[in-house]
């Protein structure tokens, strides 16, 4: 193909262009022509098409996501808000923390190992770009039924990919979720969250300013990886029949990423850059247009300078390549020598590919010929915005009417015991050690708590013991029954998971995984979910600092259950005081919060193959009261575990298994209801006998309902007058499931 230059484009307005194949709609193509006042060159078309894809432009979600800004609570902690690579919050002592979740769903379905690995690589670079050292990874994952053949293909590859990448770059993977549901068959969700730490003065932004400053590309060479990946993989429903436009799969090179991290941090320490951006989706198209657009606009790039792995790549392909482990920095000329010296020390390829200009256009040349000449804002920010129609699905009412509370329930000792064993051994509730053991949780030496624990706790200062706690949560079934309430339940659960460690929740991130936005029913779920999160964030006084939207997670007409994964970050002034759900010695077990008859969408109903009804109520004010209580009384609480999936039965058994003890508890009222209800706003605590009256009194003062369940000890779980199960038996049931399914 001959080189298409701006000159040629101006003189050949009628040339047919493959805009449709690149995923653009006709009106979008016409808008590009209007912006440029001519037809785009093929390179410009490539840039617009990737940057205007759903994945990069948020064209279907933008109108809703605005609420996070509009309803934002006033927060003194917020240092950098939505819009940058990741939000940043102040955690005190001069430290700032950044965190964000990303999805890599479709790539992980196609090639589980590399898809998941590059997902981790991408989010880690987002965090690095803010000037932070990446200190922790969490991986919220969703798969089809655990026994489905495709799950056997996808899950082991995804886990090995996350471990393979995270372990090699030396960032501990310390938490996440593994959830199975039939709606994820063919649409696994691979989300990855990364946390980074820096000093306030080290915060970096993605901005190209200062005419004459140099644009430097550093990291891996550019190859044909994932060309068109953005538009093909992220914007359209994946269907097996239709071949992808370019089959190249992105392959991660964690070693290169590790040296890139160290090299970048050394560069940041010497303050050598005025702006920096990682190359993720849409590669150079994205990095150059976003950097220029956030600055004064002017930038000139000599594309032929880009170091290539495959010499045959065309300029269009170079612009679209999603080769991993690359970064783009804006460096003042006076600092370039030192910059290149540090790169050389780390054996990182670094190339000056252009400079910031005083103009307002992004100009890209190829061996001296002008092939791109665009106002960068039109590429990076002024993409199309859709106000897609949305409507509550017709059958939503029927779904909500079919409540799980009406299902026949187990009664009597034998049936209840069987129900408990079934619950604790179900793939969703089963022990996930087979998975978490594949992750290095110790690297960096600051892990105070990692799975199994409600939230991961990471020390960030070795002298003061300042630390952070992070958790992610979402029950997609609740969101299917009521996306508004389901989303607030996810928010409440993540908040509670952070709070039970004794940390103070500080900020929210999210990864909104949904089906096709072109389906009004899905769009309704999405709109409700965003509205719920914005309202909830405002009510709790926590800023949403960033996030990610992943649409088109569906097979044919059938979408996944809506899965807005919520991540919460909290700060803990002294990690030595962090509470876990492991205790030693005999303790009194106390339930905080109220148990209502709420079974719909829960694990027990799921085990019955039932999905219907109305999800548990949520009361965010009560969550705040609980969090404050745990924080205030943390010196008296030996262990704490939040109640969520599987209710009291699961929380109690998990706490006892961790603590290697049995317990004798009594339940007043319907034992089934109390054990299996998934009412929100509840926490199980273990307290030593001498402190229990004090703690219960304090809880009453705070208006928290308490139930004294009984005492730990013995080798069985005794529920007085109801049943007795040996802890060994429970342990075996809990631990057997996942290895039996996935050991090769």
């Amino acid at each position, binding site marked *: 193909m001959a080189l298409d230059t701006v000159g040629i484009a101006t003189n050949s307005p009628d040339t047919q262009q493959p805009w449709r194949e690149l995923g653009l709609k006709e009106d979008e193509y016409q808008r590009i022509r209007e912006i440029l006042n001519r037809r785009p060159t093929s390179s410009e078309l490539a840039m617009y098409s990737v940057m205007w894809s759903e994945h990069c432009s948020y064209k279907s979600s933008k109108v809703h996501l605005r609420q996070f800004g509009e309803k934002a609570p006033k927060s003194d902690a917020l240092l950098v808000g939505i819009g940058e690579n990741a939000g940043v919050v102040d955690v005190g002592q001069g430290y700032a923390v950044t965190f964000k979740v990303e999805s890599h769903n479709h790539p992980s379905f196609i090639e589980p190992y590399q898809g998941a690995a590059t997902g981790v690589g991408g989010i880690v670079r987002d965090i690095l770009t803010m000037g932070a050292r990446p200190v922790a990874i969490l991986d919220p994952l969703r798969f089809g039924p655990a026994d489905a053949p495709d799950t056997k293909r996808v899950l082991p590859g995804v886990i*090995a990919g996350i*471990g*393979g990448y995270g*372990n*090699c770059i*030396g960032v501990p993977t310390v938490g996440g979720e593994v959830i199975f549901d039939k709606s994820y068959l063919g649409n696994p969700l691979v989300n990855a969250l990364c946390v980074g730490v820096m000093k306030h003065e080290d915060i970096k932004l993605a901005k190209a300013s200062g005419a004459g400053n140099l644009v430097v590309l550093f990291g891996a060479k550019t190859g044909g990886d994932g060309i068109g990946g953005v538009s093909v993989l992220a914007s359209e429903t994946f269907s097996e029949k239709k071949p992808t436009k370019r089959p190249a799969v992105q392959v991660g*090179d*964690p*070693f*290169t990423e*590790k*040296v890139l991290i*160290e090299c970048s941090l050394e560069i940041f320490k010497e303050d050598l850059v005025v702006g920096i951006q990682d190359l993720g989706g849409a590669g150079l198209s994205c990095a150059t247009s976003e950097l220029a657009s956030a600055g004064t606009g002017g930038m000139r790039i000599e594309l032929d300078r880009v170091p290539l792995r495959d010499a045959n790549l065309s300029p269009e392909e170079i612009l679209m390549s999603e080769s991993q482990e690359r970064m783009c920095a804006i460096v003042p000329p006076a600092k370039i020598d030192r910059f290149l010296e540090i790169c050389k*020390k*780390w*054996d990182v390829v670094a190339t000056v590919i252009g400079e910031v200009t005083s103009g307002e256009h992004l100009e890209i040349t190829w061996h001296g010929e002008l092939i791109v000449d665009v106002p960068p804002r039109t590429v990076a920010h002024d993409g199309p915005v859709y106000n897609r129609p949305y409507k509550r699905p017709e059958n939503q009412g029927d779904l909500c009417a079919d409540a799980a509370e009406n299902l026949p329930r187990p009664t009597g000792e034998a049936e209840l015991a069987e129900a408990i064993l079934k619950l604790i051994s179900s793939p969703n509730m089963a022990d996930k050690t087979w998975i*978490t*053991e*594949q*992750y*290095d*949780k*110790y*690297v*960096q*030496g*600051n*892990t*105070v708590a990692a799975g199994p624990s409600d939230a991961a706790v990471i*020390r960030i200062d*070795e002298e003061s013991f300042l630390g952070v706690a992070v958790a992610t949560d979402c029950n997609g079934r609740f969101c299917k029954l009521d996306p508004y309430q389901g989303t607030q339940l996810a928010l409440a659960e993540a908040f509670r998971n952070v709070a039970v460690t004794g940390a103070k929740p500080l900020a929210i991130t999210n990864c909104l995984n949904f089906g096709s936005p072109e389906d009004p029913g899905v769009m309704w779920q999405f709109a409700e979910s965003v509205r719920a999160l914005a309202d909830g964030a405002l009510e709790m006084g926590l800023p949403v600092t960033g996030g990610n939207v992943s649409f088109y997670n569906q097979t044919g007409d059938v979408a996944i259950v809506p899965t807005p994964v919520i991540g919460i970050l909290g700060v803990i002034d002294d*990690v*030595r005081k962090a509470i876990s759900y492991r205790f030693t010695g005999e303790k009194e077990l106390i339930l905080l919060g109220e148990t209502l008859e709420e079974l719909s969408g829960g694990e027990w109903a799921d085990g019955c193959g039932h999905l219907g009804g109305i999800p548990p109520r949520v009361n965010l004010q009560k969550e705040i009261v609980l969090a404050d209580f745990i924080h205030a009384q943390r010196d008296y609480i030996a262990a704490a575990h939040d109640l969520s999936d599987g209710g009291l039965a699961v929380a109690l058994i998990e706490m006892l298994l961790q603590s290697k003890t049995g317990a004798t508890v009594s339940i007043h009222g319907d034992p089934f209801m109390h054990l299996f209800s998934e009412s929100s706003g509840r926490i199980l605590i273990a307290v030593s006998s001498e402190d229990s009256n004090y703690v219960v009194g304090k809880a009453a003062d705070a208006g928290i309902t308490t139930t004294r369940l009984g005492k730990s000890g013995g080798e069985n779980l005794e529920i007085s007058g109801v049943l007795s199960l040996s802890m060994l038996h429970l342990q075996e049931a809990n631990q057997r499931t996942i290895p039996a399914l996935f050991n*090769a």
Partner: protein
Amino acid sequence: MRVGVVTFPGTLDDHDAARAVKYAGGEPVSLWHGDTDLKDVAGVILPGGFSYGDYLRCGAIARFSPIMSSIIPAAENGLPVLGICNGFQVLCESHLLPGALTRNVGLHFLCRDQEIEIVNTQSAWSGDFTRGQRITIPLKNGEGSYQCDDKTLQELEENNQVIARYVGINPNGSRNAIAGITNKQGNVVGIMPHPEHAIDALTGPSAAGLAFFTSLVRARV
């Protein structure tokens, strides 16, 4: 006492090793893979990680680095060297220790709290233990299965060169459940699990790993 901690590109646990030296009362000195100067250290630690990405074979490329060209002859002359995990692999690739580390039998990377039994307390790095002492420290590796031929194994056992063995289920398929070995002189030690991650019960399963570092630092004060 100055103890060198080597950083190769891809090394991950260098900070942890340096922290462990500090906790043990020593002075950590960082050594860069591209240098040849050992900076007058009295001992060297090759930390865990993925030197050069562990591409080709774990430790294979690191072995040829400039710093190793100084460490190998120094170790042959008695300089105490401790290789942890990837460092153990580098020591085997350098032929400072016999045998090799291969893929875990389970074929997965494994990170768990592992009980080991200290077998040899005569080496430069294990004098602060008592023989038969059992400690729990993190194990984290994908290629930690210690392999060697029968003759080497027999020699290792006869010469009391096994430093530590896994207790309970052998996590990676190592011959004779070997977790760590020393050379005949006792100055070079390789260990698969990570004592530097067990120097403080807050961030590790125990603080029992510290004795590897105090063994060297205290003996030479």
